[in-house]
């Protein structure tokens, strides 16, 4: 039964044009930025490396597809939650706006099952979106610039051998999906409150901006609460490119983000289950 519900929820989501807007934006941005980087010919990377070349001999091409794919992920990172909220925020509020709550909630199936099918669909969308971003940015960058060892700037400079890069990207995208599920569940929560699809997007982005300011503004007064803010861990996917990987920090990030996901998802279910449908 639940599989059938998920199938039809996925059908509703993936047959809607707005679902593909995020994918389209990602495709355009990746094509434009990666091609522009190729035209630049790695000049900005060369400037950084010039000082190194006085002390080291750099062999091979460090301005390669892996480097660009990571830069793309880094630069898109603030915008991805918006594109996730765009679809996740529509899951419940879209039904209210369209009046279709009246169609689906008068059936002999519990609201919990309907919510669960929507939640699973949101997870499917979020996962497919993040992995599409990864797959497309890596494959286009490799086609355009080829592979090689990967250079990482983090306090110092780290060169990761090419054989060690692919799995790190995979792990990074798994963590990124986990982060984005927090954003998706937050959008789902706001979606359960309101009856228009714009509200959840604005509210999710509003929370993200406020939490980001508190997290990254160098004020000591916010220091005690920072460990509890999800924004402190959203970009922990970058830890996968460190050597050694700080697994304790990664796991703490997983736990905090998971707690937010659980809290938002449960609250969304609670509200949805008891909501009076007046639309």
């Amino acid at each position, binding site marked *: 039964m639940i599989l059938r519900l998920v199938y039809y929820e996925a059908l509703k989501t993936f*047959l809607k044009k707005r679902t593909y807007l995020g994918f389209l934006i990602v495709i355009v941005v990746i094509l434009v930025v990666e091609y522009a980087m190729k035209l630049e010919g790695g000049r900005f990377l060369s400037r950084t490396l010039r000082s190194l070349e006085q002390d080291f001999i750099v062999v091979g091409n460090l301005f390669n597809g892996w480097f660009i794919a990571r830069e793309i992920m880094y630069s898109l990172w603030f915008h991805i939650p918006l594109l996730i909220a765009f679809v996740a925020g529509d899951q419940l509020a879209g039904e209210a706006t*369209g009046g279709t709550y*009246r169609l689906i909630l*008068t059936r002999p199936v519990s609201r919990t099952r*309907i919510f669960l099918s929507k939640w699973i669909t949101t997870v499917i969308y979020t996962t497919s979106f993040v992995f599409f971003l990864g797959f497309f940015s890596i494959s286009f960058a490799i086609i355009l610039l080829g592979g090689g060892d990967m250079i990482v700037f983090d306090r110092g400079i780290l060169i990761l051998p090419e054989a060690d890069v692919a799995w790190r990207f995979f792990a990074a995208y798994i963590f990124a999906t986990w982060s984005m599920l927090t954003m998706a569940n937050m959008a789902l929560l706001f979606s359960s409150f309101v009856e228009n699809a714009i509200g959840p997007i604005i509210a999710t982005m509003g929370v993200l901006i406020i939490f980001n300011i508190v997290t990254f503004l160098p004020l000591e007064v916010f220091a005690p609460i920072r460990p509890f803010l999800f924004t402190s861990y959203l970009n922990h996917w970058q830890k996968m490119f460190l050597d050694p990987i700080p697994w304790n920090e990664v796991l703490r990030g997983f736990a905090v983000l998971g707690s937010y996901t659980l809290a938002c998802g449960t609250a969304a279910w609670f509200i949805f289950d008891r909501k*009076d449908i007046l639309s």
Partner: protein
Amino acid sequence: MAGATVLRTHNLSKRFKNRWAVRDLNLEVHAGDVFGFLGQNGAGKSTTIRMLLSLIRPTEGGVELFGHSLHRERTLALTSVGGIVEKPDFYLYLNAYRNLSIVGALNGGASRKRILEVLDLVGLGQRAFDKVKTYSHGMKQRLGIAQALLSDPKLVILDEPTSGLDPQGMREVRELIIHLSRDKGKTIFLSSHLLHEIEQVANRMAIINKGELVVQGEVTKLLDERETFVIVQGEPKRLIGEVLRSKALNLLAPQLPAGSKGRLQFTEKDGSFQISMPFSEIPRLNKELVRRGVRVHSLIPRRSLEEYFLSLTGQHGEVG
């Protein structure tokens, strides 16, 4: 003889902040009924229907469908129920077939054959694979009825199903309701503010006003108990006037209900007589007029339910 009770409400009430939208509503719908649920706009009809279909939680009281409590056994209670609440809305970017597949999945699954069958029943078979956004309002209304019938429910709850339809569309929906009741044995719960609509199709009805039940019972009985305005047209007019003033008055007066003060109320306008009298006395009036030599052209019971409705709710003005 009344069939088994398929729908029962116990002191059903809903409060929004400080306002009671529905208060202590006790309805009973029997198997085979076409049950008219009448009320003006804002009387609480849609709120009641939303509670019957579990879209809204009652503040007090409860709903029983086929003997199952909607609150405790929601899935069981709704298994044999189909419905439309207000205007039917669909996923506009999907076709009718796909929309009904989604509804079917929520009912435990519907075969392609069954989906096409209900679309044919409401006259949308040829448009099954067109996107719903290309449908007219009337077509969406019919698709709404199709989704309500998809699971072959025993009880069909229809909230203003003719709303926004042209006269032809309204007649088609009325005929469909009669077909579902007579030929398919469905129990129909039909809400409307179009009083003549209820009069034409319902055998039992309830009237709700300001969230409270005013009256409930068999349509014919309720109408017979109340005065009806009858327009009498015929020749010669002089003779009609004489009958109404003298003999007919004496003949009919003992049958009049207490509220009519023992005499016929009538006025003459543009050659027609308008009489206030019990509905059940119309044949006797006709007989008396003919006996006295009047060539009766027509005896038209006029807006009987409207007048009845207004007399019960104490409201005046346009009621649909």
